[in-house]
C-alpha cells in the first residue's frame, strides 16, 4: 500500500504501448516532444562546440564596459567588459554536464529503490518507500546548501552528486507505483509461475515496461538538477570560478546589474534556462501522453477537430454528419490509430 494513494503518474500503463516504445519510439511522432528534442539537441551542440565558437575569452576584461548588445558584443558586456555571449556559450557545457550526471545518478538510485521496493514488498517495501518519501519531503535546497557550503571544493561533479543524492525520491516513488501495478499483470505472473528468478523477471519482464516512466523521471530530474545548480551558483554557494548560467547571474546580481539597468546581463542566461527547461517539459508531455493513453486524442489534432466541429466531451457524444469518407472498406494503418487500437485490446 502506498502512503498516499493514487498518483497521476500511476495511471494505467498499457503494456502493448510500452512494448511499442522499444520498437519504434512512437512518442517521437508527438509534435511537442519533437520540438523539445530539437531544442535540447541545439543546446547539446552548443555544449560541445561552445568554448570554440565563443568570440571572446569569457573571463577576459576589456575596455567596453557595460555595453548594451551590439554587433561586436551580441549580448552586451559586464561591468568589467567581459562578453556576456561568450559566457553563455562557455557556460552551456557546465549546465548540461551537471544536469546529465545528476539525472543519470538520481535515476539509477530511483530505479534501484523504486523497483526493489515495488518488487520485494513487505517490510523492505515499507522501509524503502519511507526512505524515498523522506527525501521527497525534506526541502532539498537548504540541505544542498548546508552540504555544499561545508565542502571545501564544490565543483561541478560534486554539485551533481549532491543534487542526485537529494533528488531521487520522486522518481523512486513513481517507479514503485508502476512496478506494483506491473507486478499484478499477467505476463509477470506467468513468468513467476514458470519459476523464473526474481532478478530475471525484474530485468527482462519489468524494466522494459518501465522504460517510459524511467525516461520521464530522468527528464524530470535533469530539469530539477539544472534549476537547482543554477540557483546554487546564483546564491554563490558553489564555485563561482566555473562559468555556467548561474554564475553569470551571480555576478550580475552582486554588481547591481538591475539598478544599473543592464538587462542584457541577466536576461539571456535566464531565457536559456527557461528554454532548456521548456524543452525538457515538452519532452515529458510526449512521454506522458504516451504512458497514459487517456491523455491522447486518438490520432487527431485539435485543429482538425475544430474544423469538423467535434468537441471531445464526456457525456455528450459529438454528432457529425459530414459523410466525406465512405463507410467501411479496409482502412490505411496509420501509426496513431494502430496505437489506439492496441490500447483498446
Amino acid at each position: 500500500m502506498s502512503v498516499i494513494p493514487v498518483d497521476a503518474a500511476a495511471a494505467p500503463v498499457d503494456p502493448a504501448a510500452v512494448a511499442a516504445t522499444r520498437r519504434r519510439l512512437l512518442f517521437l511522432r508527438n509534435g511537442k516532444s519533437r520540438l523539445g528534442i530539437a531544442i535540447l539537441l541545439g543546446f547539446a551542440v552548443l555544449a560541445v562546440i561552445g568554448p570554440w565558437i565563443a568570440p571572446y575569452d569569457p573571463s577576459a576584461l576589456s575596455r567596453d564596459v557595460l555595453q548594451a548588445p551590439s554587433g561586436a558584443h551580441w549580448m552586451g558586456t559586464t561591468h568589467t567588459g567581459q562578453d556576456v555571449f561568450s559566457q553563455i556559450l562557455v557556460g552551456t557545457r557546465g549546465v548540461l554536464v551537471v544536469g546529465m550526471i545528476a539525472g543519470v545518478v538520481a535515476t539509477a538510485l530511483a530505479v534501484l529503490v523504486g523497483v526493489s521496493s515495488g518488487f520485494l514488498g513487505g517490510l523492505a517495501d515499507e522501509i524503502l518507500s519511507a526512505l524515498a518519501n523522506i527525501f521527497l519531503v525534506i526541502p532539498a535546497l537548504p540541505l544542498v546548501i548546508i552540504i555544499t557550503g561545508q565542502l571545501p571544493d564544490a565543483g561541478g561533479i560534486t554539485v551533481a552528486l549532491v543534487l542526485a543524492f537529494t533528488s531521487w525520491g520522486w522518481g523512486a516513488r513513481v517507479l514503485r507505483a508502476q512496478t506494483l501495478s506491473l507486478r499484478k499483470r499477467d505476463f509477470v505472473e506467468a513468468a513467476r509461475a514458470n519459476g523464473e528468478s526474481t532478478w530475471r523477471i525484474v530485468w527482462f519482464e519489468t524494466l522494459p515496461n518501465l522504460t517510459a516512466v524511467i525516461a520521464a523521471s530522468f527528464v524530470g530530474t535533469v530539469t530539477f538538477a539544472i534549476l537547482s545548480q543554477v540557483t546554487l551558483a546564483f546564491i554563490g554557494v558553489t564555485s563561482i570560478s566555473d562559468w555556467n548560467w548561474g554564475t553569470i547571474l551571480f555576478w550580475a546580481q552582486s554588481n547591481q546589474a538591475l539598478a544599473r539597468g543592464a538587462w542584457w546581463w541577466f536576461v539571456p542566461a535566464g531565457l536559456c534556462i527557461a528554454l532548456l527547461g521548456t524543452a525538457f517539459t515538452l519532452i515529458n508531455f510526449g512521454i506522458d501522453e504516451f504512458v497514459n493513453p487517456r491523455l491522447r486524442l486518438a490520432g487527431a489534432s485539435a485543429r482538425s477537430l475544430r474544423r469538423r466541429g467535434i468537441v471531445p466531451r464526456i457525456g455528450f457524444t459529438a454528432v457529425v454528419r459530414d459523410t466525406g469518407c465512405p463507410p467501411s472498406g479496409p482502412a490505411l494503418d496509420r501509426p496513431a490509430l494502430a496505437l489506439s487500437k492496441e490500447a483498446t485490446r
Partner: protein
Amino acid sequence: MTPEPVLEIRDLAVDYGYGASPVHALRGVSLTLHKGEVLGIAGESGCGKSTLVYAATRLLPPPGVIVGGEVRFHGDDGPVDILRMTDQELRAARWQDTAIVFQGAMNSLNPVYRVGRQLTDAIAAHRPGSSRAEREERARELLTMVGIAPERIRAFPHQLSGGMRQRVMIAMAMALEPKVLILDEPTTALDVVMQRQILEQVMELRDRLGFSVVFITHDVSLLIEVADHIAIMYAGEIVEQARASEVYRQPRHPYSHGLLHSFPPLHGPRRPLAGIPGSPPDLQALPSGCPFSPRCPEAMDVCTDVHPDLGPTAAAEPGRRVACLLHTEGRTLPASLSV
C-alpha cells in the same frame, strides 16, 4: 392493439477515432423499442452492443463519434430526435426518459460521495420542488427495492460489495421511474440467485409501471426467458431481429444459430452444444460482402461480394427480419435454419 414505439433507432452509424481512418463500430443499425416491451440485445463480445446503447443516449465517450442516423424518442409531446437535441434539452430529458445501468457498475459510483447523495442528486436535479426529506425517503425506498438495507444510504461505495454496488446502480436508474430502462450487463457481478431476484424485481416493476427495457447480456438463455424481442448483433450490425420465442425455436441467421447453440438452454429439451468457429472480425479490416461470411458454415460465393441488408425472412414471417443472403428469393435454406 398495435404497440406504440418509444425509442426508434434509424441507420445509426458510429465511429471510434477522429483521425483519417476511424473504426466503424456501428454501421447503419436500426431498431425499435415498443412501449412496455423488453428488448434483448445479444452478440459476441466486441460486436458493439454497448456502443449501440451509449450512442443512442449520446453517452458514448471520446473518441466515439456518431456519424449518421437518428434516434427518435416518443415522449409525451411527440417524437424528438435525441441526436439533434441541445445540451440543455438532453440534460433535462436524461434519466426521466432513459436511465441506464452501465456495464461494469463497479466504477459507476463516485468514490467520495455517500450512496444516498448519489441517489438523491438526480432526483434533486429533475424535481427541484421536492424536499430533502422526500428525496431521502425515496432513496431508502429504492435501496429496499433492490434488497439493500435502507441504512446503507450513509455508506460510501468502497464499503459495499461489488454486487451491492450493481444493485445500487439499478436502484439509481429507477429513481425517476424512466420510460426506458437500459441495462448493459447489469448483473455480471451477482450470483445466480441474486441475478434472478433483481431481474424479477425489475420485471415486476415494469409490469406495474409499464416502462420499456433494453437488456444486454451474454447469458442468451436468460435473455430468451425475459425478453419479448431480441436483436442479434454481429460486428456492428444487426443480423437478426425477432420475437424471443421465435429466435429460440428457430433462428434464421447462421450466426444466431451458432450463438444459440453455444449456450446450454435453461429449460426445454437438451440440444448439442456447438461454438462458432473462428473469432470476431477486426472492425478495422472487415471482410468484403457479409462480415460473417468467413466464419459462416453456410457461406456461398456471393456472400463475399454482396453485403446483405436487414430484410424479411424467406418465409416472410411478420415482425421478423434477417440480414442473410440465404433468404433472398429462389434460394433454399439449409435444414438447420428452415425447420
